[in-house]
């Protein structure tokens, strides 16, 4: 038994080494290919300066525009990329290949941005601000997935949970605003959204923990159920009763002093409740999962429920609590769609953000901060696409829209050392 296990481990390690070596070489070739593209496409075809506006009206002190000569910049980036690519062929490069791959992609994106804005001007600060806003529901979606999967409950139903929060938030806030005023009505809507999210978590928990429904089936069913219910009520009732779907929007709160810092201020300190809330939730969840006794227990339940049970941890209760917290986070994130941006519920308005959140979770290796980083990448691409549609580039906007998805595939495939889910992920636990 042990010999077989050792042999398997050796074979596995050898296999992994082989994979890593091959991937390092692939990364090298990809980087060199990118260098050629950057030099030939972005370098040859661009003229003049790309001007990025950094200043906004609220800045405490003036910021000059960032003007970059487009063609020289592309050539510099191409040389750096070629160097990074060539470096992959040196012995011992495997350790840092993922890092350099990430840096290489980032540089390519900046070269692209300079090429697209060459001879024009656009607000970089505005785009970065939009990046943060658009990352919120995705990062929170990833956090929901992390909270659930760390206790071994796969949550495919994030999308539906987001939608339920968006819907409930809008309706409750719309009904209560005439009675209580916008501030209290909005808050009531937010609380209702969080509560309905918690209920959705409880529903998922009951289905998969108590009734041992297949976790993926339960999640798919929750998505379908919430999409059906909210679409039905929207088309059957809300189209004729507009007063039920006219919610206030949480205003941006400027943090004193910090909001005046150029670039950083508009990005992080002139946002509304949802951005600050997301930051707090991600920080506190990281602390909870990795620095508290409760978090350790939760992770134990996700990795080895039998062992956790033997140590006296109530596996079912830990799972219920985490899934419900996850649901509440999803309800909060859902309210972003209505109370945090447009003040109105539309059918299927989450539009796959929950699934992208799921991708962000896996991409971020089941860690809240990792999910946030992945969400920022998605948010950046989203904001970039919008801004570039205004600047007008020769590339069709559909391809810009695809870019983050393709980049995700490339990154997920390129990251060496496979991301590992919690060991008991997706398995129901049956107490003896």
């Amino acid at each position: 038994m042990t010999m077989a296990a050792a042999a398997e481990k050796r074979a596995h390690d050898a296999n992994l080494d082989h994979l890593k070596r091959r991937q390092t070489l692939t990364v090298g070739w990809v980087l060199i290919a990118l260098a050629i593209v950057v030099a030939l496409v972005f370098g040859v075809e661009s003229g003049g300066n790309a001007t990025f506006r950094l200043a906004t009206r609220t800045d405490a002190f003036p910021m000059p525009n960032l003007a970059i000569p487009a063609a020289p910049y592309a050539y510099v980036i191409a040389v750096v990329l070629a160097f990074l690519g060539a470096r992959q062929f040196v012995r011992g490069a495997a350790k840092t290949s993922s890092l350099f791959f990430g840096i290489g992609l980032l540089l390519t994106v900046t070269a692209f941005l300079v090429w697209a804005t060459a001879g024009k001007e656009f607000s970089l600060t505005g785009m970065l601000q939009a990046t943060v806003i658009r990352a919120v529901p995705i990062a929170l979606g990833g956090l929901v997935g992390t909270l659930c999967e760390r206790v071994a409950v796969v949550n495919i139903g994030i999308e539906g949970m987001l939608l339920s929060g968006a819907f409930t938030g809008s309706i409750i806030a719309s009904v209560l605003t005439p009675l209580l005023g916008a501030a209290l009505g909005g808050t009531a809507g937010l609380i209702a959204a969080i509560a309905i999210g918690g209920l959705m978590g409880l529903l998922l928990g009951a289905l998969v923990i108590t009734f041992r429904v297949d976790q993926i089936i339960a999640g798919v069913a929750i998505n379908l159920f919430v999409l059906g219910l909210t679409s039905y009520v929207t088309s059957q009732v809300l189209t004729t009763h507009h007063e039920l779907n006219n919610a206030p929007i949480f205003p941006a709160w400027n943090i004193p002093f910090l909001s005046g810092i150029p670039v950083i201020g508009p990005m992080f300190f002139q946002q509304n409740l949802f951005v600050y809330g997301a930051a707090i939730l991600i920080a506190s969840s990281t602390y909870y999962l990795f620095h508290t006794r409760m978090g350790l227990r939760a992770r134990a339940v996700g990795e080895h429920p039998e062992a956790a049970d033997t140590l006296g941890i109530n596996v079912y209760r830990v799972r219920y609590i985490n899934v419900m917290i996850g649901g509440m986070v999803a309800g909060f994130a859902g309210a972003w769609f209505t109370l945090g941006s447009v003040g109105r519920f539309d059918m299927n308005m989450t539009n796959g953000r929950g699934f992208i959140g799921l991708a962000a979770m896996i991409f971020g290796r089941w860690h809240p901060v990792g999910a946030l980083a992945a969400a920022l990448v998605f948010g950046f691409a989203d904001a970039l696409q919008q801004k570039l549609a205004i600047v007008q580039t020769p590339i069709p906007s559909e391809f810009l829209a695809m870019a983050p998805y393709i980049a995700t595939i490339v990154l997920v495939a390129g990251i060496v050392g496979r991301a590992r889910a919690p060991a008991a992920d997706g398995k129901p636990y049956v107490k003896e």
Partner: protein
Amino acid sequence: MSEYIKQETVTEQETKLARPSAAGFDVEQLVIVPVLSVVVAMLLGGVVMLLTGVDFTRIGQAYTALFLGAFGSISAISETLTAAAPVTLAALGVALGFRAGLFNIGAEGQMIVGGLASVYVGFAVTGLPIFIHLPLALLTGAVAGALWGALPGWLKAATGAHEVITTIMLNLVAMQLTTYLLRTPLMQRPGRTDAISQNVLPTAQLPKLLDWIDPTLRLNAGILVALAMVGILYWLLFRTTVGFEFRAAGLNPSAARYAGMRSSLITVVVMALAGALAGLAGANQILGVLGRATIGFTAGAGFNGIAVALLGRSHPVGVLLAGILFGALEAGGRQMQVAAGVRIDLISIIQALIIIFVAAPLLMRAAFPWAFRKNLKARG
């Protein structure tokens, strides 16, 4: 140690319980639970209607229209089967993935790509007789879907990239690709500015099956393609060595590897076949129903395919029955919206509830103890 292994196996079985079904015929699992589920889901659908201000008479009208619109006439049955064909095909692809332990969320994208490829062959290739042109268009759709499906399979086998992420991303890429391609001169109908393709030539259209009764009946040979695929998939999964290897890889990947099966190859092949089935679903929608491609031509059949595969427990015959149920609900739902003024979105609620109840036999047993044999708790 052996204690632990035993427990692990039990858990493993529990996990798989709801998806691939057991071989034998179990009346409770295969008849009582589904029938009760449909009834309870319809009752709860009625409650939802009551809560949104629909009175009892209209609920009665709505359900009558739902039933009549699904099975009440030849035209209703034609509509039901027309709606069932693409969703069944897409679901077969998802089910094949489940059998091999792969969660293919990408049926929607594979369906889109298959549909786009078949519409192109359908209008751009001219001068062929129907018995060459139609199979060619179908085959192109299947191959395009297969390539779109094989890509995440290959990425998983080569780099370990999780198929859930890659297939979600490829869905989104496929959607953007549709918006782009339908506006290029390659695809766009001359004289139009919106995203719509040229019309498929008559030689590439799936022939109507019932137009000798009434020319308006839309039922086409796509349902025959779906039935054929049900048969082929059943044979492949349960009667061939390859199918055995697929299922073994799904039930216990390590054991399959130790038995000498090439798990990487299986992953790629299964994803390619799943993509081919979804691609056929897209081709069926284009060549049989619409005759052209627009944005959203799949009508979400790829996503519904996931639900149908789960409901059919990843068994080809179960998938067919679940596909017909979904087709019936869709066809009946349209009638319900027209006749009783209840929006068709109610159908999604009923579908979701049916899935939940079918997947939770323990829940049904707790709610309706009189419908089940008593000693089953031990087996549960």
